[in-house]
């Protein structure tokens, strides 16, 4: 899709303005029902980007991304534009700077259109936790689009833009991609700089792309995956080159399947059938399917719901109503701070702050947080061993198809839907979700592949065969 649009732009069959106008027209028609966007960027900003992109095309300096409209998740900062992270806490917040990924997109000549709806501060799996109302799934309006990057998925699904950016802390790109029939990538931890992305779980967060094809996701990923000194975890160029060399070796043509993990209770029968059918299809394309054992992987979800809230409780400390965000006055500094946070932050955010405070509190720290961190190291070793044998580890992306609004009102039930996506964040490996068909209700199902650290190229290669 991007390549086609690029050709049309270069051959002057279409101008950047026409392409952007087409995008804006679709958004205008569809978004009042779907509510994928929280707002468009200012006209002045849009016009300057359109002019800059057209100049790049006219002068022969265009990249594949030049002139391509992109939607950005509302927790990624764009200089001079509003970014609210789907929260009342940051209602009307105007970012004074560009995130690293935004600088890279601007450099590529991409046209940033607007900001997408999300679960508040990326905490949720359905986009129902947005303080500005839920986003609907364009494939079935009675169902959730997944989350937390539900808006970024929905806008691509209804053809508002060809690609978008989301963030993924425990599945927030892959699960909505699966729910909306798209491709979504969570890159290797350290691959994409998080400078300018509002932190949720800092040892887990990654920014990544959504698209309709693996090729589009690959193009956007390569545009943003560059080294940045402003994120202490960003991989250096030398480290990237070492990894590139490591994975330029031919594929082993082996796909690992953790059967026990997939056969656990709560995984929908149709999801499982679709998963095994997809494996069969890959087998027919010359891949060997290998049964693998990841003894501790079932514990990753418990570890995730310890590590993530711990980091949330720390990261959310910055929302004090003083320097930015909602401010409610109180008799004292402390009272004002408490009031601002209580009124500005939604239920799920407050629940995770409380939970994080619990697991980090004296007396529980060793029992929960330290144990989860130790488990994380054990899981890394387990994954490393498996990746010596196979190219990728395959699972369904979500244990169930998209659910109806309000169906999962119990927080724990919602958390359990993240079972297959959290391991990649816990160990830091890249993972991609690819559409693999529909269930009997015509709801999309996603196939997830996790690769070894830095092996995005392998993921793209295999994903293109599905």
């Amino acid at each position, binding site marked *: 899709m991007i390549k086609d649009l690029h050709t049309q732009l270069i051959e002057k069959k279409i101008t950047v303005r026409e392409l952007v106008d087409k995008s804006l027209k679709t958004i205008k028609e569809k978004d009042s029902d779907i509510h994928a966007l929280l707002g468009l960027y200012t006209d002045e900003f849009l016009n300057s980007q359109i002019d800059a992109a057209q100049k790049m095309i006219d002068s022969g300096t265009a990249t594949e991304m030049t002139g391509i409209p992109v939607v950005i998740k509302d927790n990624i900062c764009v200089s001079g534009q509003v970014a609210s992270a789907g929260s009342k806490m940051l209602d009307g917040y105007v970012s004074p700077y560009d995130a690293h990924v935004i600088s890279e997109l601007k450099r590529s000549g991409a046209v940033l259109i607007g900001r997408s709806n999300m679960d508040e501060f990326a905490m949720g799996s359905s986009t129902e936790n947005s303080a500005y109302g839920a986003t609907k799934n364009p494939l079935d309006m009675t169902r959730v689009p997944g989350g937390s990057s539900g808006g970024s998925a929905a806008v691509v699904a209804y053809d508002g833009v060809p690609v978008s950016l989301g963030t993924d802390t425990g599945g927030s790109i892959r699960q909505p991609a699966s729910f909306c029939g798209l491709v979504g990538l969570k890159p290797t931890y350290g691959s994409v700089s998080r400078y300018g992305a509002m932190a949720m779980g800092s040892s887990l967060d990654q920014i990544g792309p959504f698209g309709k094809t693996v090729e589009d996701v690959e193009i956007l990923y390569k545009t943003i995956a560059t080294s940045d*000194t402003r994120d202490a975890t960003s991989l250096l160029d030398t480290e990237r080159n070492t990894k590139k060399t490591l994975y330029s070796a031919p594929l082993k043509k082996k796909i690992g399947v953790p059967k026990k993990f997939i056969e656990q209770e709560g995984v929908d029968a149709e999801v499982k059938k679709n998963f095994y059918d997809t494996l069969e299809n890959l087998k027919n394309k010359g891949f060997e399917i290998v049964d693998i054992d990841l003894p501790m992987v079932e514990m990753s979800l418990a570890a995730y719901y310890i590590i993530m809230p711990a980091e949330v409780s720390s990261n959310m400390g910055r929302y004090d109503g003083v320097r930015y965000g909602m401010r409610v006055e109180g008799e004292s500094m402390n009272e004002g701070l408490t009031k601002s946070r209580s009124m500005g932050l939604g239920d799920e955010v407050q*629940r995770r702050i409380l939970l994080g405070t619990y697991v980090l509190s004296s007396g529980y720290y060793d029992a929960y947080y330290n144990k989860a961190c130790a488990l994380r190291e054990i899981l890394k070793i387990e994954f490393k061993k498996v990746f010596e044998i196979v190219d990728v580890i395959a699972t369904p992306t979500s244990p169930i198809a998209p659910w109806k609004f309000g169906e999962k009102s119990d927080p724990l039930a919602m958390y359990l839907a993240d079972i297959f996506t959290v391991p990649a964040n816990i160990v830091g490996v890249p993972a991609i979700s690819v559409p693999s068909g529909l269930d009997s209700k015509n709801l999309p199902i996603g196939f997830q592949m996790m690769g070894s650290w830095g092996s995005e190229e392998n993921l793209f290669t295999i994903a293109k065969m599905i």
Partner: protein
Amino acid sequence: MKFTQEALDNLAVLSRLSLKNEDKEKLVEQMDSIIGYIGEINSLDLEAVGVPDKIHINVFKTDTVTTVSSPEHTKSIIQNSKDVLGDYVKVSQVIKQ
């Protein structure tokens, strides 16, 4: 061990959150079920599987300050505060007389 409302009230103070009385009962229930779930991690015998000694490393390199402060930079940063006096952000009194 059952999660109690007293524990919830203590956490709220530490978290700088004031919870509504009508929400507390439900929240205690939810926290209890979540803590029950994550508590499964305690069934793990880490000694038996062998805990690696190198843990908790997240910073890949040292931070260096690269932003050069300028009046425009300061202005763009404090524009988001609700109460500003010149180049300063105003806050309520911290220490009482």
